């Protein structure tokens, strides 16, 4: 299986662990990710706050650059996924915007036929296109005994309705049951991490982060699994600031779901980017998985 791949800016550096583990997992499961040549930033939420038409054109350049023989585009970041998918929908639904975006693209010698590319998030590809049977047979190191809290965040589950619930998604839960993990059923798995709120109002952002960490602690999770670089950054990198702000003592490892999938598929921690998280996942992995394998 072959997909066009839009990594997004975070994957280049901040979320290098996500990129490394995504590539390892893709090779192991046998799907090819063909990076969109010369892709540009999706504009996050900031560009759409300023100028909708220009923001749409900036996003559409990426859709236009998808190789003509490929018609599915995979994004690992929630914000990139939504901007790409939403722009494609907007162009399909709104003839005026579609015409103007294409006029702007033409200034760069490009064009995009709305609806040509199906935009998907990485989790959806792994969950739907491989499925239980094929993933189970690849597991060489069961995650048995490890309590993981799948964290979905917002923009993959909402507002575009896929096959999963917009309130109580289950795909990552199911994936990790296939891998043998104990999946923590906690109530905030699709609540917001605050996105860029850390840059606008720290008290507000820290409270949103605290709620997520506290819930994971209350439900005795060993770690939180993310599917978006922004979520991982907020929960991991800001964790010590949150502790300082509230006088709490959270030590919750925040890793990407692809990293733990990689562990189950038998890869070494280093090649999956472990060690890049600020709150180390190693103690939990050693305590819970050590008995059965050389973690």
């Amino acid at each position: 299986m072959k997909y066009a791949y839009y990594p997004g800016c975070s994957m280049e550096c901040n979320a290098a662990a996500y990129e490394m583990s995504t590539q390892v997992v893709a090779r192991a499961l046998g799907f090819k990710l063909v990076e969109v040549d010369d892709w540009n930033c999706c504009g996050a939420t900031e560009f759409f706050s300023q100028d909708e038409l220009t923001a749409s054109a900036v996003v559409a350049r990426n859709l236009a650059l998808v190789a003509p023989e490929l018609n599915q585009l995979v994004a690992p970041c929630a914000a990139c996924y939504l901007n790409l998918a939403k722009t494609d929908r907007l162009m399909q639904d709104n003839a005026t915007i579609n015409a103007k975006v294409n006029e702007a693209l033409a200034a760069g010698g490009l064009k995009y036929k709305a609806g040509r590319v199906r935009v998907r998030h990485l989790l959806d590809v792994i969950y739907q296109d491989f499925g239980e049977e094929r993933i189970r047979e690849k597991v060489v190191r069961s995650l048995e005994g490890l309590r993981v809290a799948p964290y979905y965040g917002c923009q993959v589950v909402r507002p575009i309705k896929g096959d999963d619930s917009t309130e109580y998604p289950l795909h990552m839960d199911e994936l990790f049951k296939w891998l043998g993990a104990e999946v923590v059923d906690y109530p905030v798995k699709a609540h917001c991490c605050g996105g860029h709120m850390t840059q606008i109002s720290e008290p507000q952002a820290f409270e949103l982060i605290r709620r997520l960490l506290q819930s994971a602690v209350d439900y005795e999770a060993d770690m939180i699994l993310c599917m978006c670089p922004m979520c991982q950054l907020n929960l991991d990198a800001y964790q010590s600031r949150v502790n300082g702000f509230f006088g709490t003592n959270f030590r919750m490892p925040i890793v990407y779901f692809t990293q733990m999938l990689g562990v189950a598929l038998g890869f070494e921690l280093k090649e999956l980017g472990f060690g890049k998280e600020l709150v180390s996942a190693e103690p939990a992995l050693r305590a819970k998985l050590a008995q059965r394998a050389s973690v």
Partner: protein
Amino acid sequence: MGAHSEGNHGSAFLREVIADTPGGERIVHCLQCGSCGGSCPSGADMQYTPRTIFAMINANQRDAVLSANTMWYCVSCYLCMTRCPQNIPITDVMYALKRLAIAEGKARGTDAPALAKTFTDILEKYGRSFELGLASRYYLLNRPMAMMKMGPMGLSMFTRGRMALLPTKIKNLDQLQAIIKKARELGEAS
């Protein structure tokens, strides 16, 4: 608000917001049920919840709406939008209000417009986001004191190879900039 139908009814501001929001015509169907404010993770910190904002839009309170903090506290989680029984694209309305407030310089008590401006400037210059450049320029210009607190975290990110010191540039920057220029012209013409 349900009494209004599309077209030349409702306040001037209501018509303006509808015109600026894809799918915005649904606003006239607001039942004032409050599901949006009740679902909002930032609801408690907003001057007016989305429900109140819709009533104010209908009452033509343009200045009060555009200088409110409501849209700046919106985290784009889309929970209100998927729960709205009337299918109003609430998050998209918030984006439209942000654009109007920025365009008219009405945003009050928030650095969000400055962050948005810095972010888009970097995108236009390099084609990619550049976290260190974004953070340093935004903090230096807008929140110099807060920068001190960011130091230790930045260092931790750097030592783990998670912070680039230099931006990445796309190859065909001219193409991206030509697209942006044309889109801006088309936006201004309409």
